């Protein structure tokens, strides 16, 4: 416990040997060797652009949602980073370090911007696994809220099995609508980051469809959600 106690008063984590590995939109991610175990500290920093009242409200809400969702997933056998320690005051959570790369990086490495002709069995398998896991998450009535290819990791030690991260925007809902919007976010992030990858996303959808009896209503809803963006060449 001594290191954890030490962490509490420290505002700059790099002073205890933590290494900044990425800065997302929400938080800074540090890597730290903790009693010989590699771990991640995700620290939500104060957004100076946001009004302080608004910022602390949003920040507190999201850290709680993240913890609850990570736990719920873990309990139900969905691979997410294991939660080690939570510090609400300094809005930090300590998690297991997942050795691997993001799906985004994997696709960049393996497809070289041509997603139509480079569909190896491995890529198909990963897409099908994403669909299946997202479906499992939705069956827990959990909405991820920010499904992108940067928020899905591939764990090296288990031959690139998927690990879902960043549940800061997650929430609980039983509605097909919310689940469909979640898939729509993934679709848009997928296709705008990986142009011409429509067929890969279809693999995800197909396996989502095959994975649960609740899926058909979500997929139907998705067709309605797709019509909603502004100025589309469709009427809806």
């Amino acid at each position: 416990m001594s290191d954890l106690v030490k962490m509490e008063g420290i505002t700059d984590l790099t002073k205890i040997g933590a290494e900044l590995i990425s800065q997302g939109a929400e938080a800074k991610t540090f890597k730290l060797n903790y009693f010989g175990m590699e771990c991640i500290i995700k620290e939500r920093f104060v957004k100076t652009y946001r009004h302080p009242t608004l910022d602390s409200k949003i920040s507190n809400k999201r850290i709680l949602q993240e913890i609850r969702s990570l736990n719920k997933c873990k309990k139900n056998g969905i691979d997410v980073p294991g939660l080690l320690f939570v510090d609400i005051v300094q809005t930090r959570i300590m998690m297991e370090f997942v050795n691997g790369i993001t799906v985004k990086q994997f696709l960049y490495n393996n497809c070289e911007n041509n997603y139509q002709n480079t569909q190896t069995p491995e890529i198909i398998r990963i897409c099908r696994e994403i669909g299946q896991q997202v479906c499992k998450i939705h069956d827990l009535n959990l909405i991820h809220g920010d499904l992108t290819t940067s928020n899905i990791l591939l764990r090296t030690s288990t031959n690139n099995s998927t690990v879902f991260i960043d549940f800061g925007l997650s929430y609980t809902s039983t509605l097909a609508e919310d689940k469909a919007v979640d898939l729509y976010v993934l679709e848009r992030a997928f296709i705008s980051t990986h142009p011409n990858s429509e067929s890969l996303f279809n693999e995800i959808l197909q396996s989502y469809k095959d994975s649960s009896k609740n899926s058909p209503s979500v997929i139907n809803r998705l067709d309605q959600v797709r019509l909603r963006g502004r100025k589309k060449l469709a009427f809806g």
Partner: protein
Amino acid sequence: MVIVMGFEGSANKLGIGIVKDDGTILSNIRHTYITPPGEGFLPKDTAEHHRSWIISLVKRSLTESGLTHKDIDCLAYTKGPGMGPPLRSVAVTVRMLSQLWKKPIVAVNHCIAHIEMGRLITGAKNPTVLYVSGGNTQVISYSLKKYRIFGETIDIAVGNCLDRFARVINIPNDPSPGYNIEQLAKKGKNLVELPYVTKGMDVSFGGILSNIESIAKNPVRLKEYTVEDLCYSLQETVFSMLVETAERAMAHCGQTEILAVGGVGCNERLQQMINQMVSQRNGQSFAIDERYCIDNGAMIAWAGYLIFKNNITTPLCETSTTQRFRTDQVEVTWRDD
């Protein structure tokens, strides 16, 4: 040397601009249709405004730039998106001038013109673009010959939300409702709690507008908060949502530059928030002033030139307009990265 004349009239601003192939702006004039407080601009009346001003604006821009119509190589106009009747009035004029002067026409996507103008003025190379105006709210990133939309509003545009609130509190539309809200907001102190609606990269403003409208119309709530407080809270909430989604797009795409364009993009509070966001991520932000941020003719001329330089023109029979014309439908022929 190529000189292009651009015509913009997708909303209540009518703009004529003349731009040279090196990016020099020879003329950029604008006439705005301003309605009385409490009223928005209707398509029919806006089209009427454009029709009655366009010829004198064309003449003025030629005089201002010291050119005659013989010096112009190409006419560029806004094909869409925008309001139908105003778009059509401008397109008709362009077709007429094209036949009179024997000049080719290039049809331009309004959103693309905003982005390219921003890149021209600021020199930003490959920025994440936050395009915010009265008709559009999009977070855009370039990849493989397309400007791709990462996030957008799922109901009304942010500028539309501000404009409609300006109507509720009955403040003048001159010079623009958003500008007047910005001035009132500077005097606001108390933050009213409003919904904060982000769905992944998407945002929604409809619920926020109804919520703040109900506060503004409720005499009991108005004892707690002043109109200035409401303007302040509205700005703080909706701009936070925009900056947050823009930041998420930057993080996802690994970009360090951000460019704000569109009418709301010249709001100083929004620019300040963008600056604070990028300084926390060691990035760089680019902003442009109202001459180029708000709809104008020069941006249409410049985007028209970019298309025209590859010898692409629009045949007369295809110079139609469309209200629905998405940013990601346009093939970006002028960028090679």
